[in-house]
């Protein structure tokens, strides 16, 4: 968050990831040269050519996140994602990881409520690239889900779930999502019971139903030309499972009843979360909410929450607000941690700041400062292959306009004080606000 003590250097990694850039090889229709096509198997491909560093980044995303998992088997999405790397029809898990490491490649991935994806960073030189891509293609299209690896990963997930049950931040976050989303799958988090219920056949079935070509999204960025990118996309998707039709429709997200949940915990601090379901990835209110949130709690060391809660009163080291846009309404979340003895005072102060902002919106000066930062600092959002890949993968997965990044600064610049106030009034209704306090009441 801010002004770190950094004992081992690892904390820095999240701040890092800075800069490099792609080459605008040929400006297609849009100024940002995202090339887009569909493979023979129906996967959507997004490609940005960037030749300045001899390396290549590839993301393959599926609609296989938490929202596709049955409630009684929460954890199945994460488990399937972890096991895709655990051996193919032709090779053991150990051979797979050796083949990646032998060419210096990095294989990663992430899974959230909407998406599950694998990512590969490799040198673009022939031998290294070919071996890394062949390995990725193999695990994506012929995962073996070996029994031993399944048992191990299931046990590790149970361990992680139990450990989380002791941590105030994890307890707060799970309770927060449960209250925000009720019976909607965004509420789901694995528990011991749901994980223990998962069988190997469930993993295989989840893969067959969701890691499918027609819903795969491939993002390629780096040292390759169009024809190579086309071959890569085919290689990665031609043998993916086919599934007829669209996935099952999901229920609508309903606004929760406003409420406050307090839970006991022995930690020295209370962990406090406030929020409600608010914004989708393609939301027409995206820019007013982005700009408004910068003023409220998004803008580093200059936001209202930072000034009122941390700077003036010393209540917390970390205090923030953000919108997490998802396919359906993702959460608006305000968070802080403060020593238990002053938790109620700090929470009351957060409510004052929030209510005041909802009532009046930003001042003209605050709006101007927010735009200066968001417009002036736009280059910092895309000044490395890593950062640009993240942005393009979002555009790709959520089917945003290809010109989304080109239009970003103009759309920020257009936001008015009235737009912010109206968008917050629509999306953040105080009577629906959920509050969770973990580490409350008891000393």
């Amino acid at each position, binding site marked *: 968050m801010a002004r770190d003590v950094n004992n081992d250097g690892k904390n820095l990694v999240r701040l890092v990831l800075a800069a490099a850039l792609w080459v605008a090889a040929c400006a297609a229709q849009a100024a940002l040269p995202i090339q887009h096509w569909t493979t023979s198997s129906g996967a959507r491909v997004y490609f940005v050519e960037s030749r300045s560093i001899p390396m290549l980044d590839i993301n393959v995303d599926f609609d296989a996140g938490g929202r596709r998992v049955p409630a009684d088997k929460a954890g199945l999405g994460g488990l399937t994602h972890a096991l895709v790397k655990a051996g193919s029809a032709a090779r053991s898990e150990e051979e797979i990881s050796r083949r990646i490491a032998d060419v210096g490649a990095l294989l990663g991935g992430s899974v959230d409520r909407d998406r599950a994806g694998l990512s590969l960073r490799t040198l673009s030189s022939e031998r290294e690239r070919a071996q890394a891509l062949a390995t990725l293609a193999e695990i994506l299209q012929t995962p073996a889900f070996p029994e031993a690896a399944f048992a191990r990963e299931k046990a590790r997930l149970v361990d992680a779930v139990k450990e989380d049950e002791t941590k105030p931040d994890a307890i707060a976050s799970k309770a927060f999502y449960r209250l925000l989303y009720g019976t909607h799958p965004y509420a789901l988090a694995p528990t011991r019971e749901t994980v223990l219920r998962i069988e190997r056949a469930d993993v295989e079935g989840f893969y067959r139903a969701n890691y499918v070509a027609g819903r795969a999204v491939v993002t390629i960025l780096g040292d390759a030309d169009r024809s190579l990118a086309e071959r890569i996309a085919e290689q990665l998707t031609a043998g993916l499972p086919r599934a007829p039709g669209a996935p099952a429709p999901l229920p609508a997200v309903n606004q929760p009843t406003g409420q406050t949940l307090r839970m006991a915990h022995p930690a020295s601090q209370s962990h406090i979360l406030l929020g409600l379901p608010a914004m989708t990835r393609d939301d027409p209110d995206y820019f007013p909410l982005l700009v408004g949130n910068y003023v409220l709690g998004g*803008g580093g060391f200059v936001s209202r929450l930072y000034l009122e809660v941390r700077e003036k009163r010393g209540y917390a080291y970390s205090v923030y607000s953000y919108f997490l846009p998802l396919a359906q309404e993702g959460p608006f979340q305000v968070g802080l941690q403060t020593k238990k003895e002053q938790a109620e005072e700090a929470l009351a102060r957060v409510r004052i700041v929030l209510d005041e902002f909802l009532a009046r919106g930003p001042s003209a000066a605050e709006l101007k400062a927010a735009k200066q930062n968001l417009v002036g600092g736009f280059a910092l959002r895309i000044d490395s292959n890593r950062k640009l890949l993240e942005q393009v993968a979002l555009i790709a997965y959520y089917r945003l306009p290809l010109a989304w990044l080109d239009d970003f600064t103009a759309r920020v610049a257009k936001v008015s004080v009235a737009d912010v106030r109206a968008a917050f009034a629509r999306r953040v209704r105080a009577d629906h606000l959920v509050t969770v306090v973990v580490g409350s009441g008891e000393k």
Partner: protein
Amino acid sequence: MGIRMFRRLFALLAALAVSAALAQGAAEERKLANGLRVIVKEDHRAPTVVHMVWYVAGSMDEVSGESGVAHVLEHMMFKGTKTVKSGVFSRRIAAAGGRENAFTNRDYTAYFQQVPKAALPQMMQLEADRMSNLLVTEAEFSREIKVVMEERRLRTEDQPHALVSEALNATAYFAHPYRRPVIGWMNDLENMSYHDARNWYARWYVPNNAFVVVVGDVKAEEVFALAQKYYGRIKARPLPERKPQLEPEQRGARRLVVKAPAELPYLLMGWKCPVLRDVDKDWQPYALEVLAGVLDGNESARLNQSLVRNSRIASSVGAGYDATARGPGMCYLDGTPSQGRSAAELETGLRAELARLVEGGVSAEELDRVKAQVVASQIFKRDSIFGQAMEIAQFETAGLSHQDIDRVLERIKAVSAEQVRAVAKQYFVDDDLTVVVLEPQPLDRATPRPAPPGVRH
């Protein structure tokens, strides 16, 4: 306005792309008359720049009773100068479209901004101002110290693994100041005054104890001229004497237990190891880097393959070693036992892996695998100007030169299997070992959990 700016950005990128592909230039260095070193690395792929100021003063320069003051001063550096009022520093950086932060470690305190390149002169002006004109007032201090105590609660008091790490340092070092936590002991924070912070600033924040690193879309000569203009006017002052405070030889293994609310135990083992002092003569630090890679450099590396995947003793394992530091070095192994397995079983498993290294050595294949990753990482690091600036600065703080970076990587690539075996044998010995075990406690203290089998007390 926004769109125009963006199209210019693209035109610029297209124009620069060819030269960027060809030239991966070396960093250049200039020393100002007041002793401030300025190191610049040009990287023209994006119209952005990272500007860092590093002070060679970290928690290792603190004395007992004042632990945490280096980090507290870091917080106070945002609280205003004679001409730039509290909060204005951050507002100016935000208005320039920038991002900023700072961090304190054992060896240093560092400040940085990432900005569109046109804002670099203003960043230098602001940093130069707070290098010599900081105001540390009682009112600002009394609020900020509360923030720092909240930070300690968040990141240490309520984090069992952080408590284990803190306990290991406090036990492995009797004399060396690495024994004290960077964030400071809570009681020291409670008794700190604004005078302590002010004295710290007066002692260490001088140009002859600092260096500036700039990486990005700049011309080195222009940066040197800017540095002369903004930093050049600050006067040098003599630094306090730094006592060596060398750690006496360890005479036997040290073991301890930390109790905290958790589900699973956690094991942390640390052995005293050398760090890099002479890039050409030393060889052990390079071999230790490769050793860490053989044990934990990738998913098929020995510890994960053997203890997580095969025997399933551990839920996770790791190895750590950092060859660059001002103070003494340490080699770490750590891990979380699986449910039903104990920290003692995990320790036995880790020791068996060390024994296998000493007896059987490493294969050519493993060595090549670690080196392939070194080669690739040299390419991948070019994607981050921030990472490049960090690498330069960490070398400089450790008393090495940024000019040594490539040489060090070459020497790591030249490490032999026999050298890896030799350092495993020489340094992973019990007399130099400190072991800390987290003994999990139930959240509800009314119903104590029985100790898991095999945990040593």
